[in-house]
C-alpha cells in the first residue's frame, strides 16, 4: 500500500526554538491515526505544515499518487488537492445558515467567476441534506450556525469537511468540550470516515484515543517518539518518561 501523505525530514524553528525537528510521518489512503503528545510537542505545527500555514525550513511533504509536493502550494491549493482540516475551536461561519455553510464547503469549482454563476441544483440540495442527516443537523439547515450548541457546531464543521470530500483529514482535538454522548457520536463519525480516506486525529484525551482503536504516533519535542498500537506505546519507557516528566 503506497502512502497518501509522506512527510520526511521536516524541521521548522520559530526564533531559534525548534518546534519540529527532523519529523517523518506517513499515512495510507484509508487509515485512521491518532497523534498524541504533551503540550508543545509540535502537534499543531505539524498540521500547520501539512496545510500550508507554516513553511518548514527543511524536509519534504508529498501527497497523493503523483507525490505532489505540498510545500510550493498555497493553503487554498492544498485544500483543493484534498486536504481538509478541522480546528480545535469550532470554526463555522456563524452569521450564515447551516445550509449556506455546507453549500460553501461542497466540492465544486472554487474560482470567483465559477462561484459567481453557480446556482444550486437539485443534486446539490440532496447532497447537503444527506450530509446534514449524517451529522444530525437536518432539522437545523435553515438556522444560523451561530445559534447552534457547541457540539452541533463541531458536527457542522465535520459535515463541512465531509462536503469537501478530502482524501486526507486532519482533526484537531475533536472531543474537546463535548458531552459523553456527543463524543461517542464523534468517534463513530471518525471511524466511518477513515474507511474511505486517511484521517489524522490530534488528541490529548487518552480515553478518546482508546475508543478510536487505531495506530498511535507519539510526538515529543517535534519528533516522533514512538509509533504503534495504544497499548504498545503506553508500555514504551520513553513515552512513560515524557508523560510522567522524568525525562
Amino acid at each position, binding site marked *: 500500500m503506497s502512502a497518501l501523505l509522506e512527510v520526511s525530514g521536516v524541521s521548522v524553528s520559530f526564533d531559534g526554538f525548534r518546534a519540529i525537528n527532523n519529523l517523518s510521518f506517513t499515512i495510507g489512503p484509508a487509515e485512521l491515526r491518532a497523534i498524541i503528545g504533551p503540550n508543545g510537542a509540535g502537534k499543531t505545527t505539524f498540521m500547520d505544515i501539512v496545510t500550508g500555514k507554516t513553511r518548514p525550513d527543511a524536509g519534504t511533504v508529498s501527497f497523493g499518487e503523483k507525490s505532489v509536493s505540498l510545500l510550493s502550494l498555497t493553503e487554498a491549493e492544498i*485544500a*483543493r488537492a484534498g486536504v481538509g482540516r478541522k480546528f480545535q475551536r469550532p*470554526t463555522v*461561519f456563524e452569521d450564515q445558515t447551516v445550509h449556506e455553510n455546507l453549500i460553501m464547503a461542497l466540492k465544486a469549482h472554487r*474560482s*470567483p467567476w465559477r462561484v459567481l454563476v453557480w446556482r444550486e441544483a437539485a443534486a446539490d440540495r440532496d447532497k447537503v441534506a444527506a450530509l446534514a442527516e449524517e451529522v444530525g443537523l437536518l432539522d437545523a439547515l435553515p438556522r*444560523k450556525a451561530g445559534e447552534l450548541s457547541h457540539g452541533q457546531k463541531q458536527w457542522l464543521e465535520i459535515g*463541512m469537511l465531509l462536503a469537501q470530500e478530502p482524501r486526507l483529514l486532519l482533526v484537531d482535538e475533536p472531543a474537546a468540550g463535548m458531552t459523553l454522548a456527543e463524543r461517542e457520536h464523534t468517534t463513530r463519525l471518525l471511524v466511518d470516515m477513515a474507511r474511505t480516506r486517511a484521517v489524522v486525529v490530534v488528541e490529548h484525551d487518552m480515553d478518546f484515543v482508546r475508543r478510536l482503536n487505531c495506530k498511535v504516533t507519539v510526538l515529543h519535542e517535534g519528533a516522533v517518539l514512538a509509533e504503534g498500537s495504544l497499548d504498545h506505546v503506553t508500555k514504551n519507557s520513553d513515552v512513560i518518561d515524557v508523560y510522567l516528566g522524568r525525562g
Partner: protein
Amino acid sequence: MSRSFLAKNPSVLTFLLVLAIFTLTVTILSDAYGLAFVSTSFIKTLGKTLCLCLVALAMDLIWGYAGILSLGHMAFFALGGYGLGMWLMYARTEEIVVAALAQDVIPATAEEIRQGIATQIFGVVGASEFPAIWVFAHSFWLQIALVVLVPGGLAAVFGWLAFRSRVTGVYLSILTQAMTLALALYLFQNDSGLRGNNGLSGLQNLPGLDGVSQDRLSVWFLWGSALALGLGYVLLAWVVSGKFGSVIRAIRDDEQRVRFLGYSVEGYKLFVFTLTAVIAAIAGALYYPQAGIINPAELAPIASIYLAVWVAIGGRGRLYGAVIGAAFVSIVSSWFTGGRVPDVPLGFYTISWVDWWSVVLGLCFVLVTLFAPKGIGGLFDLVAGVRTPDRKGAALGPDDGALMEREAQE
C-alpha cells in the same frame, strides 16, 4: 429553496419601485417637464445624490460584505469623472474652436483645429500641446472605455500587490488612503496633463446639445443616474445573493477558514476590489457632468472617509442601508453646510452649523458605530421583527466564533 431571484431578494423590487416613483415625482415637479416646482440646481443635487448612492453600494459590497475597509474608492469615482470629463471638455472646446476658425477666409486644417483646442484647454497651465494621456479624448467611445479601464486597471494592480502580500485590516485602509492622497497630489501638479488644480470645467455643457437647456439636461441626467443606480442595485443584489455572497461574507468573518475550504481568498478580494472600483468609476462619470467641474480636491482622502461614514450610518452589510445612508447623510450635509440653517445663539457663543456640522457628523458616526452597528437599515429589522439571537453576556474573546460568556459557563 429554489425560489426565484426576486423572491429571495424582496428588497430589490421595493427598491426599484421606490426609485421609479422618486424619479417620476421629480420629473413631474421639474422645470422642464412639469410643474416647475423644483429648481434645476436642486434636480442636479438629487441626480448627484443618486450617483453617490451608487458608489455607496460599491462601498457596501467591499466593506459591508467582504470586510475590506477601503478608504480609496472616491479616487476611482474621481478617475471615472476625469475620464468622461476629458471627452466633454475636448468635444466642447472643439465646437468653439471650429466656430471661431470658420470666420477665417482660408478653411482651417485638422492640425490647426487640434492646436486651437490644445491652446484653449491648456493655456491656463501654460502649455499648448496635448499631453499623451489625451490621445483618445477626441473619441467618445474610446474615452468611455477608459472610464472603466483606467480605474479598473489601477484597482487590479493595486489590489494584486496589496492582497498578495496579505495586507489586511487597518493596514490596508491606510494603504488605500495613501493611494488616493498620492493620486490627488500628483493631479495637483500642472504638468500632470489634467490642468493641475484648475481641474476640468464646463462639464455641464454637452457637446452637440446646445439647443437643449440645462433644465432639461438636468432631468436627463437624473434619469441616467437613476437607471445606473437601479442596474447597480440589481447587479449587486445578484452578486451577494448566491454562493459568491456567502464566500465573501465568510472571508469577512474568518478568512483563514475560507482558505482551508479551498477558496483563494486573495483572488476573491481582488475581484471585489476591482468590481467595486469600476462601479465607483461609472458613478463618477455620471456625477461630474452634473457637478460641472472636477478638480484634484475631489480625490482628497476625506472624500473616501465620508463614503465609509455614509455606509456605516446607513447600515453596512445590506444594500439598501448603503443607499439610505448616502442619500440621507449627503442631503442633510448639503443642507447644513449650505448656510441655510439658522445659527444657534447661546449668548456666550453662536453655533454656526457650517462650522459645526462635521463635528455633529463625526459624533453621529461614533454613536452609530457604538450603539447601533446596523445603522439606519437596522430600523427595518425592528419593523420586521428580526432579532439577532440574545446570547447573553459579553463575548469572551475577540473572535466572532468565540463562545459567549454564559454559554461557556453552562
